[in-house]
């Protein structure tokens, strides 16, 4: 049985299709560009007033794991303000800033997203992260597992382990945690914080004798040599610190030209100029991205209002805890692996720093030339909840709207930013690149993010409107694997996505030192640390798809 999507403007950058009107077909779960004789047409959608893109993919959104549950618990105010009742097909839930798991899935689908990736999975907490994501319906999921503050790797580096042994460990942890990528958060810094070190720059030596630079170099090499599609996903050193753009540039250089993804780069693009000793270094950062083809970045745009910051970066979350609003904060050291910090925060448009942070994010978006290498994120919920994406898209696509918003923020911030002088407006084609085609490419998801023959039928249909924010907030139709799941921005059918993983080959001899490490130092056995494929299905509740 086939479905015809007739007459819409198609935006499919993977195939260089930029707004051409053409028909698309859905046959079972897949996209077809033409029907064969045996395909029986079941339904036709006349979409002359619509545009079509592939289902959107969020490459960096905190939707599962211990820190998210801490945030939910701490932000009881958010739950009280935003309760959602159940319907015949949807489960009840709570929360706008850190929604409950079911609610998260529904809200993403209602915006036309069909896949979301949790960027900070602690291997020891991976079961919980996957369980939460298994209870997040509608979208496919995946996780990046944290390395770079774990004692096992730091000791390997300190003891001069071969790159090949490090590669084996990296591959092993991907299998053990059922993840698709490797994430580093403040390389060595979370570990150093456990020794009461309050700051660690890229070329400083941490307590085990290794430098963050060494960690980035070894891990980016491991990811590259193992053939993992997603580059090393790096939360750089010194998040939020004025002058940190230099650490960011040093982190980029640590990859030695190999692929590296710098996440929520807005938080790492600060200078120290001006009366406030806080300035935009977006220009220098954008230039570094433009000049280094191995670098990709997501922005981590902030939006004004209440949110909560959740991060693995205990060191920098503690550094910023005085700014908590409301005044409460949690930090946690975790299992000789990593940590987490959770702090509510209210971004204020009349605050110089917050207004400039807002401008810096947009400056990066507008100054990075290649939309295939810059990604649309708010580092949900750290910069803002993911539900602000349609607003962000409007800020990127509509210069006059952007300038209108900027004109009401802190006047000092307006004075020192050159945002108003930036003429660029993103096109629909570029939005389709940064939210669909490029995320799929950077994650190695061959059947996602495009509308070509044989792709998974994850399709978002928007009815054209003058108000681009409204258009992106409420798609006319969303199809997931060929099934209509959203109509006019509302859920009409609930579905369960898969968990995307990658499983590079490795030498299993790495389990010998790992077994000893677990026996000697850990409080969980190696056997119980690893998550098997059948456990993912039987106990955790999600099918896996190996990429």
């Amino acid at each position, binding site marked *: 049985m086939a479905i015809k999507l007739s007459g819409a403007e198609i935006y499919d950058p993977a195939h260089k299709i930029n707004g051409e009107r053409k028909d698309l077909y859905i046959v079972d779960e897949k996209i077809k560009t033409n029907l064969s004789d045996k395909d029986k047409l079941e339904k036709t959608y006349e979409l002359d007033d619509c545009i079509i893109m592939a289902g959107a993919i969020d490459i960096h959104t905190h939707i599962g794991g211990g820190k998210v549950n801490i945030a939910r618990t701490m932000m009881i105010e958010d*739950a009280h303000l935003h309760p959602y009742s159940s319907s015949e097909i949807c489960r*009840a839930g709570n929360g706008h800033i850190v929604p*409950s798991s079911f609610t998260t899935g529904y809200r993403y689908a209602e915006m036309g997203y069909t896949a979301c990736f949790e960027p900070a999975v602690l291997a*020891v907490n991976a079961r*919980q992260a996957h369980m939460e994501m298994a209870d997040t319906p509608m979208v496919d999921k995946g996780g990046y597992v944290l390395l770079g503050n774990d004692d096992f790797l730091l000791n390997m580096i300190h003891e001069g382990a071969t790159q090949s042994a490090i590669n084996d460990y990296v591959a092993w942890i991907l299998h053990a945690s059922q993840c698709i990528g490797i994430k580093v958060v403040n390389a060595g810094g979370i570990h150093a914080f456990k020794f009461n070190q309050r700051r660690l720059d890229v070329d400083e030596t941490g307590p085990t004798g290794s430098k963050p630079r060494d960690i980035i170099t070894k891990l980016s090499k491991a990811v590259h040599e193992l053939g993992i599609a997603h580059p090393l996903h790096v939360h750089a050193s010194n998040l939020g610190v004025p002058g940190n753009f230099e650490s960011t540039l040093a982190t980029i250089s640590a990859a030695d030209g190999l692929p590296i993804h710098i996440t929520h780069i807005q938080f790492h693009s600060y200078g120290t100029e001006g009366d406030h000793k806080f300035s935009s270094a977006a220009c220098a950062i954008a230039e570094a991205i433009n000049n280094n083809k191995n670098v990709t970045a997501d922005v981590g745009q902030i939006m004004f209002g209440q949110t909560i910051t959740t991060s693995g970066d205990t060191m920098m979350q503690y550094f910023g805890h005085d700014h908590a609003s409301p005044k*409460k904060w949690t930090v946690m050291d975790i*299992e000789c692996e990593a940590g987490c910090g959770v702090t509510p925060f209210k971004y204020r448009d009349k605050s110089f720093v917050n207004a400039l942070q807002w401008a810096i994010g947009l400056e990066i978006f507008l100054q990075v030339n290649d939309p295939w290498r810059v990604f649309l994120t708010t580092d949900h919920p750290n910069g803002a909840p993911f539900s602000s994406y349609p607003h962000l898209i409007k800020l990127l696509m509509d210069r006059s709207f952007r300038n209108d918003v900027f004109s009401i923020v802190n006047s000092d911030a307006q004075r020192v930013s050159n945002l108003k002088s930036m003429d660029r407006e993103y096109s629909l084609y570029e939005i389709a690149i940064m939210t669909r085609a490029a995320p799929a490419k950077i994650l190695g998801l061959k059947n996602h993010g495009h509308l070509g023959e044989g792709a998974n039928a994850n399709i978002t249909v928007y009815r054209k409107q003058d108000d681009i924010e409204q258009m992106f907030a409420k798609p006319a139709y969303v199809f997931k694997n060929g099934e209509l799941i959203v109509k006019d921005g509302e859920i009409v059918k609930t579905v369960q996505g898969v968990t995307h993983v990658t499983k590079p080959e490795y030498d299993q001899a790495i389990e010998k030192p790992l077994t000893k490490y677990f026996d000697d130092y850990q*409080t969980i056995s190696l056997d119980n640390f690893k998550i098997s494929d059948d456990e993912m299905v039987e*106990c955790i509740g999600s099918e896996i798809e190996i990429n």
Partner: protein
Amino acid sequence: MQFQSVTCPHCGLLCDDLSVEVSELTVQLNNPLDPTCKHAFEEASLAKGYRPNPLIAGKPASEEQALEKAAELLKTAQLPLISGLIADVQTCREALALAEKLGGVIDHANGASMRKSTSVMQRIGEVKTTLSEVRNRADCVVIFGKNVTDKFPRLLQRVLSPEKSLGNESTKSKKIFIIDISQDGVTRCEQKENITYMFLNYPLLESIIYRFQEIITKEKISNHDIESEELLKLFKIISSSQYTTFIWTTSEFKSESVEHTVQALTEIIKLLMKKIRCVALSLSGSKAEVTANHVATWQTGVSLPVSFTQGVPIHDPVIYDGTKMIHNQETDCLLWISTYNPNDAPPATDIPTIVLGHPKIQCEYADVYLPVGVPGIDHRGLACRTDSVATLPLQKLRDSKLSTASKLVKNIYKLI
């Protein structure tokens, strides 16, 4: 048949280094030889060929009949309550779905004590750590309450006295202090092996903690009594340590002051954190409350108790406290889920009660009893550890043919 790396779900530590011998339906813990743990495992043993019957009003019934009766009782209730919730992740998931469908309330048997810590977290936050961090990083450990190590029997061996440590000699041979009140009114500090027992002449453990907070805040003492001198000494030891861990369990505190006491401890830690590393390890989870609370929080966005009486998940720990609802007869139908231990029966009550329980649970008085398998013995499952970070797998060790609680809850859901 021998099983290795078995997880013990009988306290929040979830030790997973157990060796268990299973012969038909008999379960024998070989190692470690911890009596509490051993007894808990042996309780799961069943006589050969034994399969407990579902009961309706104390009389044997088929599982199908018992499920139908359970569904009928729940469906006709005005305000059903699901409690106990001493279960694995999957059962908690199904129970939440059922509570939502019923428009009822769901809570854990230990909910009331658990949420006192939660409310402190919601007010000021926390500074926490996990078992392996304590094992490898801590050189100084302060335990508040002399019974903590009895309630978590392998804490000393598995966490506080490791044979090896990633740190140095001081993290291997930790300075351990156990603080409590003196029973005879005489302050005494005694060293036994590597543990210093500080029994101080205060009326309550809480009084010690508040006094300690005062000393740490002022960094000096105003009264030069022996108790204050000892606490000042301890403060100085903490100040010169690399990584101090405060350990407590709220059941050691007076129930009416738990919230205040946990807040005082958290404030002490946050104050110390300005200069040094100090963290909390609050122990709980002996009845799987960490598991239940985690699942509720991610599925509904709020912690237990959760009421669905108004169609949306509402967290109001005063109105919807499960224990109080049973005591005050504010619920007209109780579904009690208790899978790990035969002793965790529902409180005696006149309220119509359905029990999904351990095969040896004593609940003849229940209107409906459905025996269920023990997670980690009769079927696979998942359980969350006291530190809220590690989730441990529970193995299937025998083939008892007992239904899983999750399956039965799901079946009740389908009948409603």
